[in-house]
């Protein structure tokens, strides 16, 4: 068994090495016809760009993705510089007509995306040409290796029960060197995904056939991300099933997040695209889905007929009716730990890191400031977006809606939710985004704290203050601080993962939905001690 486990690790690492190595393979070159098509498709008016691109990337040999991408970007920059120079020239000549004419030649948008689009057409080599083999050596070996590593735990972990032996003695899970490597890998991955998609074009080739079979379109980096996300969640869900096989709540919860991720976040949106409908994840609620009210999205939905309208109505109803009602009855866990994709990744890939979240009072303060700031940010931004949409003005009180949206997308959507949110799993625990950043969690939290039937009940005086609950709370709640006083835990940040209850050695904690009366029960004296309570009360 141990041998299987170890060989699994080796196979996984080989797969990982192939995966990383794939980035550096292949050569990139366009034919003149391909370039023509691209320029016509994009409708560039620049007279320089075609020449520049043609010099840079047409009929080239041995251009790897990095040189290719830098050449493409130089070409676009040269084109734009050319017209910038003309603009400056006409400006000094005060030839306003000519100056004005130049702007149409400038090419706007993210250069990295253009470089990605070109690279996607230009690649030849291992990943685009031997996709099946390349997929097997990367994804295939990764999956097989990971499963071989995980499945022997059925035997190796021994009898069902709490399996946290050695967690703080292991360099992977105690912020040791393996944790730091995982951190660097994850952060790099997210930076590439969000800001250098052209560098990972070879990975995108690997999932092209899958994308085509679902949506008929070639894969984008987002399809790659979606596929990888589902794969990682599935493999790590197997680990959850084994680790928590004594605990039905964990098993069902894991199955649920896995289902919603694969079906709602991955398959349905891609199938919608196949039928020329807008890409939409029906469970992704605003304000986590922060661009729902952006002009481009509303325009697209309104242009998609009844179905688009349905999505629009559903999106609004989901946020203002479904979400609060469900939180009233079940707590925010129904979303955060049973449905949400971010939560899903945190509860599968992130489970080995849950103990790393900080429990200090200071971090609780920081948490409340940041998460509520993000909520205000998203609401103000959405206000701007809706104002812009209905009024047609592209700015409010002198601030451009687009600028605000770009800042949010960059800082919150990419850096916070992605790079920090997931990249920092091995350092700050698995719910960094959910705890400090997610505006939807902040909104659900208000309802959970002030109007909900959900609580974690503390079982009288049984707590022995051991601290397992607090340690394994991914949201950094000091559960023990409540339990040892005999108080129920009613906290806006609790995502109801149920692990505090699972790891408690004395059966002290139970997640339940009960009457609102007595849900919050500050206790002066613990159960079992027959003090004269009326005397205490009268003294006050």
């Amino acid at each position, binding site marked *: 068994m141990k041998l299987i486990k170890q060989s699994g690790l080796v196979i996984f690492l080989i797969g990982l090495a192939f995966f990383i190595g794939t980035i550096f393979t292949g050569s990139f070159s366009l034919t003149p016809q391909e370039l023509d098509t691209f320029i016509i498709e994009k409708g560039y008016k620049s007279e320089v760009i075609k020449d520049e691109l043609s010099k840079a990337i047409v009929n080239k040999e041995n251009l790897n993705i990095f040189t290719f991408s830098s050449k493409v970007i130089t070409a676009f920059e040269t084109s734009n510089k050319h017209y910038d120079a003309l603009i400056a020239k006409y400006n000094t000549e005060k030839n306003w007509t000519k100056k004005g004419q130049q702007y149409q030649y400038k090419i706007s948008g993210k250069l990295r995306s253009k470089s990605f689009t070109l690279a996607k057409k230009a690649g030849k080599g291992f990943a685009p040409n031997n996709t099946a083999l390349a997929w097997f050596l990367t994804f295939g070996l990764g999956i097989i290796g990971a499963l071989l590593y995980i499945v022997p735990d059925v035997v190796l972990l*021994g*009898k*069902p*029960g*709490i399996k*946290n*032996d*050695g*967690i*703080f*003695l*292991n360099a992977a899970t*105690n912020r040791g060197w393996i944790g730091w490597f995982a951190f660097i890998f994850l952060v790099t991955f997210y930076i590439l995904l969000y800001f250098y998609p052209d560098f990972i074009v070879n990975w995108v080739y690997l999932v092209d056939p899958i994308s085509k079979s679902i949506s008929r379109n070639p894969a984008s980096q987002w399809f790659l991300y979606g596929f990888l996300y589902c794969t990682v969640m599935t493999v790590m869900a197997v680990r959850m099933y084994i680790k928590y096989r*004594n*605990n*039905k*709540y964990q098993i*069902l919860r894991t199955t649920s997040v896995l289902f919603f991720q694969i079906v709602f976040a991955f398959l349905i949106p891609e199938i919608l695209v196949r039928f020329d409908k807008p890409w939409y994840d029906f469970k992704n609620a605003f304000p986590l889905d922060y661009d729902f009210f952006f002009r481009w999205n509303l325009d697209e939905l309104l242009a998609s007929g009844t179905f688009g309208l349905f999505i629009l109505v559903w999106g609004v109803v989901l946020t203002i009716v479904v979400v609060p009602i469900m939180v009233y009855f079940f707590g925010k866990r129904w979303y955060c730990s049973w449905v949400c994709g971010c939560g899903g990744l945190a509860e599968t890939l992130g489970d080995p890191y849950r103990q790393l979240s900080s429990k*200090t*009072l200071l971090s609780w303060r920081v948490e409340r400031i940041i998460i509520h700031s993000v909520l205000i940010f998203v609401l103000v931004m959405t206000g701007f977006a809706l104002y812009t949409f209905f009024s047609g003005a592209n700015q409010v009180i002198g601030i451009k809606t687009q600028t605000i949206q770009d800042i949010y997308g960059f800082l919150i959507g990419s850096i916070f939710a992605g790079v920090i949110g997931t990249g920092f799993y091995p350092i700050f625990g698995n719910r960094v985004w959910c705890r400090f950043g997610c505006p939807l969690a902040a909104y659900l939290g208000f309802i959970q704290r002030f109007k909900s039937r959900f609580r974690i*009940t503390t*079982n*009288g*005086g*049984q707590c*022995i*203050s*051991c*601290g*397992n609950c*607090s*340690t394994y709370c991914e949201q950094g709640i000091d559960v*023990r*601080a409540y339990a*040892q006083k005999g108080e129920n835990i009613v906290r806006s940040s609790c995502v109801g993962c*149920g692990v505090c*209850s*699972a*790891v408690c*050695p*004395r*059966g002290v904690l*139970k*997640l*339940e939905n*009960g*009457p609102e*009366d*007595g849900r919050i029960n500050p206790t002066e*004296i*613990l*159960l*079992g*001690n*027959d*003090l*004269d309570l009326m*005397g*205490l009360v009268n*003294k006050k």
Partner: protein
Amino acid sequence: MEHIVIIGNGISGVTAARHIRKNSDHKITLVSAETKYFFSRTALMYVYMGHLTFKHTQPYENWFWDKNSIDLKEGFVNKIHTDEKKLEFKDSSSLSYDKLIIATGSKPNKFGWPGQDLGGVMGMYHKQDLENLEKHAPNKEVCKRAVIVGGGLIGIELAEMLRSRKIPVTFLVREASFWNGVLPSQESEMINKHIKDHHIDLRLSTNLKEIKSDENGNVKSIIIEETGEEIFCNVVGLTAGVTPNIDFLKDSGIELKRGVLVNRFLETNIADVYAIGDCAEQHEAIGQRRNIEAVWYTGRMMGETLAQSICGNKTAYKPGHWFNSAKFLDIEYQTYGWVFSEESKQVNETYFQWQHPKDNKCITISYDVNTRKFLGINTFGIRMRHEIFDRWLTENQSIEFVLEYLTDANFDPEFYKLHEAEILAKFNQENNTNIQLKKKSWKRIFSF
């Protein structure tokens, strides 16, 4: 404003300090020779097992004490001068008090076995024991085998700790079945089997004769009393119960027996000197409780009670209905009310028992055979609500009532398989009754 000095920063002392602070502005000093900051002793095992770091065992952050103006003094009290109201420390410094609370807890029992002070022989009680274990048993290469002597709660925890690092363990238990002085045999036998399932070499009805030394003064082996067998090992865990840690009080004039003798108000024979927690011994037992209770929550309750008295609301220590809990490897155990083992129960006490055919789950309900009064319940592998049983015990409910409403008491996580129907069916069959199970009712559960 008085100066309250508390010797011992365990759960009793710290609870007293916190509640005195809540209710007064007395100056409070917590004295400890073990660690500066309070930690949860019950969690030490999880540090060795790698579930927690030592920091996680500290329920309060380090700034807490300063913020609540509770002074912490590290030092070992050598002597108490009650006439001068002064403590004398090992480093010959001293500290005056107006009121003194002794909360020094316990220490592991040693029964004068030859070799009991050798290197590698240890209890599992203090933080220093943990460090010692880490030194002598860091892994299975250094510690090729460990022998644990004494079949109680700490013994089985120590076995679990060592097994988490794959160290072979031999577990010597004096009794014929694990903890059978406390547990009914159904449960005791289930635990025996569970211990063996965890590859622990359980030796029942077995006593330690002596511990043998190697040339460096470390443990080499132990000899078994009954058979003379020699078992080679690198660590010996002595877990045969605990005694009050009160040696330093010998000449203080404070009345001692096994522990510090106290009345119901937790007062000693000397004015302004109190004792709480494991080291306190009641002159007369409270109900069916023992005179000395080395239990986490009784220490806490004594701390709560004494804090009331010291803050002007003189209060007797009245622990309510007995309850407790523990975990035997993977099996959780809770008890409410009194369930005595076969050997120590009275004639009027009888059991209703149920055991799961496959899983490690069982219950024993003890009731009065004449009045049908419910006396207590042991549950293994099933969690139960403390509030509910506390209420039922106060209301003197019958065994039939308890079974009828058993679903209200269940505290297992959601979606767990419930066994109340099977339990009740067995009772009905054995007693020729036809009790129908009531559906769980939130209203009943929270009606208090």
